[in-house]
């Protein structure tokens, strides 16, 4: 399969995951090793076989458009890593 370190960097960027150099190196080897073990899948003929995303098709489940959850209160906001009253604080995103 031969996963490269560059690919690992690209995937980490997509996954919003900062990796240290030693983690990059280890994950390159790990992903290569895992995908190598999975290579037998590629040899299996699946032409004409539909994919399964879910074992049961529940169709479109509808409900009335009503608010059923309680309003955001202190129990929710108490988990905020940084808050300002009823707002979550984050680094500035607009200059």
């Amino acid at each position, binding site marked *: 399969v031969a996963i490269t370190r560059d690919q690992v960097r690209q995937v980490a960027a997509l*996954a919003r*995951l900062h990796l240290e150099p030693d983690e990059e190196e280890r994950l390159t080897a790990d992903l290569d*090793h895992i995908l190598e073990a999975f290579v037998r899948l590629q040899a299996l003929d699946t032409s004409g076989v539909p994919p399964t995303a*879910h074992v049961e098709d529940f169709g479109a489940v509808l409900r009335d458009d009503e608010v059923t959850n309680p309003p955001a209160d202190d129990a929710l906001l108490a988990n905020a890593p*940084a808050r300002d009253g009823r707002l979550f604080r984050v680094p500035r995103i607009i200059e």
Partner: protein
Amino acid sequence: MSTLYDLGVRDAAARIRRRELSSVELVRAALARVAAVEPQVGAFLTVCEGEALATAETIDRRVAAGDDPGPLAGVPIGLKDIICTAGIRTTAASHILEHFVPAYDATVVTRLKRAGAVILGKLNCDEFAMGSSNENSALGVTRNPWSSERVPGGSSGGSGAAVAAREVAASLGTDTGGSIRLPAAFTGVVGIKPTYGRVSRYGVIAYASSLDQVGPFARDVGDAAVVLEAIAGHDPADATTSPRPVPTWRDVLDSGVRGLRLGMPKEYFVEGMQPEVVAAVRAAIAELERLGAAVEPVSLPHTEYAIATYYLIATAEASSNLARYDGVRYGLRASTPGGSLGDMYERSRAAGFGREVKRRIMLGTYALSAGYYDAYYLKAQRVRTLIRRDFEQVFAHCDALVTPVSPTTAFRIGEKTDDPVTMYLSDILTISVNLAGLPALVAPCGVDGAGLPVGLQVIGKPFDEATALRIGAAYELASDWHRRSPLP
């Protein structure tokens, strides 16, 4: 004379409802048992002493007033720590949620409480339910009560260990690729992975949404059935739950196995398995035959593709589900002075997730990324269809399948942590069931030369937990394995 912590779910609830025993006494006995054995087991991440005693008092008052609190009246139960509990820390055994306190109960918790249960505490597991040994927990080590050098299995290792060590009579775990069944087998207790859609996932921290399912652990099949009845059924808050009615499973337990057709998939009895596991499972199947079941060899030809299929689908779903941990509204936020929002995301996730979780996020992101989607994710979904069809074909002429749970008994702590692929292979006999969405029950059926438990797996047709429970109950009636206890 048995002690209070030896009481099973039905026995304890019956005594409490008859006022022969108070829930407060039972909860105190459980707390004392936890204090006595936790140093060597390590199943709990949080013990809810105050809340449990307060609930027990309420239950006792209700019974005294002539009210019936329900089938689980006053019985202490443990929950895998990925099941949200209002006001009680829920960590997913991860640093990223180490201090997370949910604002609401998962539906299964609401239903347990409605049935009269007392939540005793939160149980250790692999981080975000990703693992087969419990060694991926970021918050503690859980040891197998049968041998402190051995893993309890994963990912619901604390749920199996707590029941085996008689800290609780029952617990809940989740099973995405074997995470209830493997620890049940390794710790010698009963575990049930229900049909996909049987039990609500609302409030259960998501790993792989098309595979995850909540189910019970208990020391016998009847107790597991009563707990499953309490939590099963349609939930408007989870659109993937089935509207099918929930049977009264405890009524089918005495039906026996006479006339049932049981399939033995040849791919589940292969070279390289521990001979004592194969021998114990074959002996259990012979016992079922003696009790009147007809056993026939069957084949599930795509079994060899199940591991790869599962680890592509599950990690793809996980990479999406775990995108929510960004350090904004809850969970760990890394300090990034002067950094951008992006820096905050990347550093928080780097600091909060453990090695296996990162590995699975990376694998899943890769399998979904442009240029690889067709070759990996879509390919795996097509093979998933073939694996489902294998089961449909054998279930056309079989009522259930009987198999081992794992190729070996509980392995040593540290034995498989160096190579992820070796660890993934622990799931080879459990994983297809999740891909096909089937129910499966595990019950103890023997021991190996070191005295470690062996489990029998009974796989049912979709929504036919009843037949698996019947088979498990009939086997249990003819055997004593479920009566063994690892700790005095």
